[in-house]
């Protein structure tokens, strides 16, 4: 199988990830819950993981790195910390349901900063216009999970700072391949999964906290201030109730070390080279509509396409039978499809990781060509 579904989760991981997880299962107890060696090893592993994340994302203080179970978990904490019922929230038109559903559930008033696909300047102007209405918060994805559109988050963050509006960044598709700079952005929160571009296992996520009020989504034991009935007022304990996922954290540490060793620039360069190769291949095929940015910096390693006269799910299924793993449909992001005009038909999405090869992309293009010439 050729796996091109890394925007959902990376499947090929550095070998150290599985090794670390297997090691952790029988050797790591609960960090902070005891003075015995297994608890101490767990504490050391958790701290090393926080330090590795802080290093990768240029955070001075590893206490601002909170372990979660997913980017969705992280986003729920961030959104519920800053947004209340009826609050006006400004979001991009490329957000995932992990953002829109919590906002809907809270009863927030959602305003969308609409712009055309891959138009970074228009996107920035839309945020500037939307900020004039003084929203309670801005939520912005760094990279669209459907189209790979790289939003100008640095510039959007600058606008938010000027207006003193707290910013939540969804770095689900950018962490590990683009610079994620919470302190430079002045972001209130940056959410990300551990199992995509950071090459950790599923069941891991991170929330980078930039100060301000953080409201726990779960309450319970933290191994600290146990005599008090309220959650601790310090990070990371405030947001980490319950036993940690130590095999996951050990695996995530191995993934973070891989990314730090390879370098985000090198990973992005590889993914973009594969993207360009796929675009070149699909361009010559009849009946294929694909979504590629004119400017390279506007797109990360995600390529959406449609096959004329074929349902996207049918196309995805047909390619799966030919050994190509893709994702078809709405990708849990109906708003993004609405923004791009693909809500009715959906798209098929190919997404690349550092472990894909040019030969795999060649085979992918060849199989799409077979499909359209059937």
């Amino acid at each position, binding site marked *: 199988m050729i796996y091109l579904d890394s925007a959902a989760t990376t499947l090929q991981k550095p070998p150290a990830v599985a090794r670390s997880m297997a090691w952790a299962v029988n050797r790591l107890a609960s960090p902070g819950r005891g003075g015995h060696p297994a608890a101490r090893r767990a*504490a050391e592993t958790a701290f090393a993981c926080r330090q590795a994340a802080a290093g990768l994302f240029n955070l001075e203080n590893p206490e601002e790195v909170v372990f979660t179970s997913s980017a969705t978990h992280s986003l729920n904490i961030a959104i519920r910390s800053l947004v209340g019922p009826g609050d006006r929230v400004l979001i991009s038109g490329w957000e995932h349901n992990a953002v829109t559903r919590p906002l809907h559930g809270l009863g927030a008033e959602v305003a969308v900063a609409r712009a055309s696909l891959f138009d970074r300047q228009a996107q920035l102007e839309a945020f500037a216009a939307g900020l004039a209405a003084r929203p309670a918060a801005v939520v912005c994805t760094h990279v669209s999970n459907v189209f790979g559109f790289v939003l100008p988050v640095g510039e959007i963050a600058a606008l938010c700072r000027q207006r003193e509006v707290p910013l939540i960044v969804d770095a689900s598709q950018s962490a590990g391949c683009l610079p994620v700079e919470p302190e430079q952005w002045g972001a209130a929160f940056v959410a990300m999964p551990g199992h995509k571009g950071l090459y950790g296992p599923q069941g891991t996520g991170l929330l980078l906290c930039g100060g301000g009020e953080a409201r726990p989504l779960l309450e319970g034991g933290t*191994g600290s201030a146990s005599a*008090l009935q309220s959650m601790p007022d310090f990070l990371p304990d405030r947001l980490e109730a319950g036993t940690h996922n130590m095999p996951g954290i050990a695996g995530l540490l191995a993934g973070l070390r891989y990314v730090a060793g390879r370098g985000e620039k090198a990973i992005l360069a590889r993914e973009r080279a594969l993207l360009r190769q796929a675009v070149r291949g699909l361009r010559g095929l009849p009946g294929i509509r694909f979504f590629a940015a004119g400017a390279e910096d506007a797109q990360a390693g995600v390529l959406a396409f449609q096959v004329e006269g074929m349902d996207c799910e049918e196309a995805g299924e047909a390619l799966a039978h030919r050994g190509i793993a893709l994702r078809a449909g709405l990708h849990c992001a109906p708003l993004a499809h609405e923004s791009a005009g693909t809500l009715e038909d959906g798209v098929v999405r190919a997404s690349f990781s550092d472990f894909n090869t040019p030969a795999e992309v060649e085979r992918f293009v060849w199989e799409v060509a077979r499909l359209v010439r059937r």
Partner: protein
Amino acid sequence: MVYYLMVCRSLTYAQRTAAALERVGITARILRSPKVIDREGCSHCVKIPERSLTAALVVLNRAGLAPKRIFLQAEDRGLREVGL
């Protein structure tokens, strides 16, 4: 041996504290705070040799890592709070 126990607000804070001290060659061990000095229940402290206290406080002050409280642990293991 006489030691100082520096009580920290969290395990992660204690780990940062110990790392800062170890970096300058001060032996620092993280342990769960003895129950008698643990006002809120369950906390961690960093244990350092008596001779290292002054140097440790200088390092921690520079790093912005102030301990919550400091206790002197005597040879008989009795604990006495030290004013900061």
